[in-house]
């Protein structure tokens, strides 16, 4: 097909389109829907919601705050990464809250070792948290995928990784808040929550490379 013919075909398809809102606005919408879902899961899974009010450890709440901030900033990064011409500075946004999250966990590990000795480094089995994280990340990831498909797949692997990081971080908060008792050691959170998070980010990067592609209508492309 000649370029002139292609342009004529494209012009025929010039339907009105609504410009996408800014990534921050879209991230807010994603967060509203996803947080409502995670809160619902917390309400359904938590046997004793009053337990949360009794948690006084500032490290616990700082950890949840950092994970929550990681989720928001990763969502902004994912949604900004599908807008052509946007600065990639948005990609750096999740670094600070992620480092804070890691720091709170390191703080917890050090506290466990100083308080319990080497027993503080025991990794306990935590399958319920893994299931809670997978369940909690499912809908946010789906909503994010739908939102990302309206954008341009400029860096699909990075976009997929950011999207998965956003969903996994948010679901990690949900998993921690819905537990009947605190984690016995911080290293258990590192192993199970961060292990699940890394697995989900890897899956997100892999899936993003395959799912996010330039969707071009075959009727317009080299049909003659």
């Amino acid at each position, binding site marked *: *097909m000649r*370029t002139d013919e292609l342009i*004529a075909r494209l012009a025929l*398809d*010039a339907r009105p389109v609504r*410009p996408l809102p800014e990534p921050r606005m879209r991230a807010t919408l994603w967060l509203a829907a996803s947080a409502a879902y995670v809160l619902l899961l917390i309400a359904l899974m938590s046997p004793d919601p009053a337990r949360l009010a009794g948690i006084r450890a500032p490290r616990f709440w700082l950890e949840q705050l950092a994970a929550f901030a990681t989720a928001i900033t990763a969502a902004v990064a994912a949604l900004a990464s599908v807008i*052509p*011409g946007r600065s990639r500075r948005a990609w750096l946004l999740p670094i600070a809250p992620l480092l804070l999250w890691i720091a709170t966990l390191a703080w917890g590990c050090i506290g466990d070792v100083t308080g319990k000795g080497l027993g503080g480094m025991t990794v306990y089995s935590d399958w319920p948290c893994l299931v809670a994280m997978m369940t909690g990340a499912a809908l946010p990831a789906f909503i994010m995928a739908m939102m990302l498909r309206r*954008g341009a797949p400029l860096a699909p692997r990075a976009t997929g990784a950011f999207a998965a990081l956003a969903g996994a971080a948010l679901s990690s908060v949900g998993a921690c808040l819905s537990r009947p008792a605190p984690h016995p050691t911080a290293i258990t959170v590192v192993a199970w929550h961060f292990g699940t998070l890394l697995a989900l980010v890897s899956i997100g990067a892999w899936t993003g490379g395959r799912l996010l592609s*330039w969707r071009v209508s075959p009727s317009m492309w080299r049909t003659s």
Partner: protein
Amino acid sequence: MAEDEGNDFRSLMIAANGGDADAYARLLYGLAPVIRRIVGVDRQFVGADAVEDVVQDVLLSIHTVRATYNPDQPFMPWVFAIARHRIIDAGRRRVRLGSREVEFDEADVTFSTADPNIHDRDVFDMDALRTAIERLPNAQRQAIELLKMGELSLREASAATGMSIGALKVAAHRGMAALRAKLRVR
């Protein structure tokens, strides 16, 4: 000058996203040479014969993701970002395909020796060939006329003649052998 052009394109894009087909056509016709220049810079990377394909890829991509253009932002950086990514995609595709394909010059003859390349020789006396075909047995003549001259498929020739596909194959083979013998073509 370039800034004015960018502003014009931006106005056209805003109108196009509002559904103005004329503005959209003017925008794309105006953008095509700009994109061609951008892609042309990287023609070594994408392949000189693929430049126009990449230009079309970029135009299609612009069309597909036109909702991502924010009217409050400059237009040309948005176009350049799409073009840059599509050029990289095309270059990667070329490298990937190049690692699996072997290029060779298009041969103008079927064989390297002269004997089998009979087009330049005077063996094709069309009258003699026509006469030879007419003198073939009826089934062989029909098979040659339909399958070789008419380029029908075996199924179509079978439907036209009522002969089975197997019988057509045999008749065509025997007819060709008879013609070779009569015309003394190896």
